[in-house]
């Protein structure tokens, strides 16, 4: 749950590539080897894959199946452990979903989540693009490497550290408040104000990940054919027209790809980030779907209800990502999952 997915680009690229398009013809050409012989040849490969596959089976696919508790009045105390409790619990069909959709707190959390997603799409998403274009125009390689080294670093900090730094800088006892007080100004409540919380969390995300987000765009910029720039310059295009007609089209596939991924994740907004700050700013502003699930299930023991909320979120996420992928195909981009 808390492991990092370092960068989305490689992932999606691999999904787009596999199964390898060059594979089927080659396979047909290969003479048929009997399964027995192939097994004798390949068993070490299977043995090597087995432990990792087993871990995914237990900790990924088994819980995926475990989502059926969403259709139960799951009682954790009905048995000695989760399995016997699961077997002993009563099936109630869509009862949990009825409760969920009838719960105003759920709609509040959903609304908060969507608002924050849209806000970050507008105020976070373009920043790495702009920074990458800016940094790419810096001619000194040394300066560029220096800036990159500094702005990538916060990506590797945990959310606990990021929130800690923000508290120490902008909190009531932080650096900013202390300087303002010495200048005779009453410092504003930044870390605890529900009204501006959406700006705060976006600022935190920018601080942590905007620099890291540049990498993909810097790589894409490096792949734009320099001749295109030269030719358009010869044809009389100024720097802004070159930006519009050469640079941005060059970035378009990456932008579309990342938008798709973001859309598929529209219902996730930095779980740990919100969990860490929910106490400070209160539920009204900081309750998002993920924290809702956590507080409705783990802390209260109402597992069936929490699983229903989680399942709703996963289902919507899957639909969103497939739909976005479809749209990308329709407008002629390669998208995330390419057709074979």
């Amino acid at each position, binding site marked *: *749950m*808390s*492991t*990092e*997915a*370092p960068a989305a*680009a*490689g*992932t999606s690229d691999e999904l787009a590539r596999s199964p390898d398009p060059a594979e089927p013809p080659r396979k047909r050409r290969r003479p048929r080897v009997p399964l027995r012989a192939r097994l004798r040849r390949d068993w*070490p*490969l*299977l*043995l090597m*894959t087995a*432990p*990792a*596959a087993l*871990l*995914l089976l237990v*900790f990924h*696919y*088994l*819980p*995926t199946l*475990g989502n059926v*508790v969403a259709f139960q009045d799951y009682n954790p105390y009905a048995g000695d*452990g*989760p399995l016997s409790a699961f077997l002993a619990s009563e099936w109630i069909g869509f009862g949990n979903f009825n409760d969920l959709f009838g719960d105003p707190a759920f709609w509040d959390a959903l609304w908060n989540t969507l608002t924050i997603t849209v806000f970050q799409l507008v105020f976070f998403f373009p920043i790495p693009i702009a920074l990458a274009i*800016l940094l790419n125009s*810096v*001619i000194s*390689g040394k300066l560029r490497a220096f800036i990159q080294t*500094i*702005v*990538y*670093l916060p990506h590797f*900090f945990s959310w*606990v*550290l990021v*929130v*800690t*730094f923000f508290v*120490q*800088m902008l909190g009531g006892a932080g*650096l900013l408040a202390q300087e303002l007080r010495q200048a005779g100004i009453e410092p504003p409540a930044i870390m605890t104000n529900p009204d501006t919380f959406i700006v705060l969390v976006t600022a935190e995300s920018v*601080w942590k990940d905007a620099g890291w987000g540049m*990498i993909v765009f810097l*790589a894409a910029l*490096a792949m734009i054919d*320099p001749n295109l720039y*030269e030719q358009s310059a010869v044809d009389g295009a100024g720097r802004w027209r070159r930006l519009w007609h050469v640079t941005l089209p060059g970035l378009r596939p990456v932008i579309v790809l990342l938008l798709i991924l973001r859309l598929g994740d529209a219902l996730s907004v930095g779980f740990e980030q919100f969990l860490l700050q929910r106490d400070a700013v209160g539920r009204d502003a900081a309750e998002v779907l*993920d924290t809702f*699930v*956590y507080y409705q299930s*783990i802390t209260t023991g109402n*597992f069936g209800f*929490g*699983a229903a909320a989680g*399942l709703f979120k996963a289902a919507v996420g*899957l639909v969103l990502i497939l739909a976005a992928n479809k749209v990308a195909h329709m407008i002629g981009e390669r998208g995330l999952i390419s057709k074979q």
Partner: protein
Amino acid sequence: MSAQRAPWEEKPTAVGVAGKGAVLTVMALVVLIPLWSVLVTSLSSRKTINDAGGMVMVPKGIDASAYVTIFSGGIVTRALWVTTMVTVAGTLISLTLTVLAAYGLSRPGSVGHRPLLFFFLLTFLIYPGLVPSYLVVTGVGLKDSLWALILPTAISVFNLVVVRGFFQGLPQELMDSARIDGAGEFRILWRIVLPLARPVIAVVGLFYAVGYWNVWFNALLYIDSNDKFPIQNILRSMVIQGQSPNFSGQSVGSLPPTQAIKMAVVVVTVVPIVMVYPFIQRHFVKGVIVGAIKG
């Protein structure tokens, strides 16, 4: 890297240069100021901290007593020890299983290759959700066990795909000739592939290590005993939630200022990241990501 402006490019305007310089400076300072301030505060005496009003920007002498306190036993020392163990053990396990599976999945046409690959890649689209994961992890008896911080997150399919891609990019003739000479797959992996794959394995290992070092939420979920909490959880309760640290065996009056202790905990949480970071940056940024995109 072109160190010169192309002849057809316009000369930059003064405003443009100034604006660009300002943005770059702000970008750097926004990251550096918090790091600097926390470091300096952790090394400051009570008087310096009180004079500054909490956070110190200008160092006046060095007072390392906060570090002496957090390393002389107690909850922070224990948490650092726990986190180090989880990080080392977890990274070794993750790396071993990832490399093995990446190699096992690197040969199209082997038995079960396509369904197995699908099995791994499908995890990108379908994820289980918090409640069932919690039920499974507790159900297999990992509640309050440090294994709960390792096993559920041991395999990152993203990392696996990166390693697999690297393996597939190696010249296959090397392995074919070894096979003809009678070497088994394990031997080929150990003797031929691994020595060639050192950079990618280093980077993926560091990614795993950073992930384990940063573990917080899973500990919140699964750990009950106070002496098993990792450093991130201690950091949270001390700095974000403002609970005062409990250092038994020292009278309150002799303790260094709370602020310096808190900042020292921040520093010891940051330092390992900053130490491995140059390696990640050197290999990862140039090699893996760019390679993955170009591929």
